């Protein structure tokens, strides 16, 4: 049974719709620069809503746990080496460590943490000799 409301599009209907669509697209293309600028600003305002609903928190806070892990890793390496300096004149500065860790290239360093730990071990005797004098 055919639905009584089922419309049948004639070729004339399709031609009409095609012309209407073409005219509409032309009117869209002719939108002035000011209108397009306002649309752009509205779009940016909409995209800003994404930041308000969570991503901003993620963006600002994403390195905090990473920095914590990095700092813990450095402490672990120092303790593992058993190389806590005895010299009270030049104590290790945790603030300096933190600045180094927060430097942009330090995150690349963390990828090769074992390598740098090995380098540190290799240079340890020289440092020890320097401290003796």
């Amino acid at each position, binding site marked *: 049974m055919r639905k009584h409301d089922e419309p*049948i599009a004639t070729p004339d209907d399709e031609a009409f719709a095609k012309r209407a669509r073409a*005219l509409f697209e032309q009117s869209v293309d002719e*939108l*002035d620069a000011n209108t397009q600028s306002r649309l752009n600003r509205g*779009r940016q305002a909409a995209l800003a809503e*994404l930041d308000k609903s969570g991503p901003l928190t*993620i963006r600002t806070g994403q390195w905090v*746990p*990473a920095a914590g892990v990095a700092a813990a890793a450095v402490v672990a390496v120092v303790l593992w080496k058993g190389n806590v300096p005895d010299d009270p004149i030049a104590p290790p500065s945790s603030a300096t460590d933190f600045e180094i860790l927060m430097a942009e290239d330090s995150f690349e360093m963390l990828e090769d943490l074992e390598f740098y730990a090995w380098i540190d071990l290799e240079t340890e005797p020289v440092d020890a000799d320097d401290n003796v004098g």
Partner: protein
Amino acid sequence: MTACATGYAVSCTREDHAGVRTLRREQELNRFLAEVEKRALRIAEISIRDRDEAMDLVQDSMIKLARKYADRSPDEWTPLFYRILQNGVRDWHRRQTVRNRVMVWFGRSTDKDSDFDPIAAAPDPAGRTPDEQLQSREAMQSLESAITELPARQREAFMLRTFEGLDVAGTASAMGCSEGSVKTHYSRAVHSLRATLGEHWQ
């Protein structure tokens, strides 16, 4: 190689992946809105015959889509966006109806067309206008006037199907009705517009 791809993914957390997903989603949404915004503005403008009001409606719709439905699949964004926009248009008409009643009570004119100037509302021409462009604009203005005379549901179906190019299912989703209703509204709209505009228009 990123930190996430190494065995020492110290900084690679769930938040990182969420941030990447969010950035990608933001880019997708930006592309979607940039692609749809101009047509949406014209559709809203034809519906309410006021560009500034239409601009507000489109901006509100973009914000609502970003706020509520950004997590949805991009395939769903078009019908969702137009559903939000159509709801905004309907609310606008309801407010206008109330406003007109108040104006009647105060004895003011309720002729909503009295201060509508189709020439002023037409898009700004970019430079000199050839005769063909002028004729096209006049044809479009005639079409717009005829569209505004349609019942609301026919108008919605026609513009979503013809101007935005939504299929029947997408139009039904945007309008919040059945696909059969969309077909009926659209067919009646086309026949009504053709009768109003006449054969010479085509």
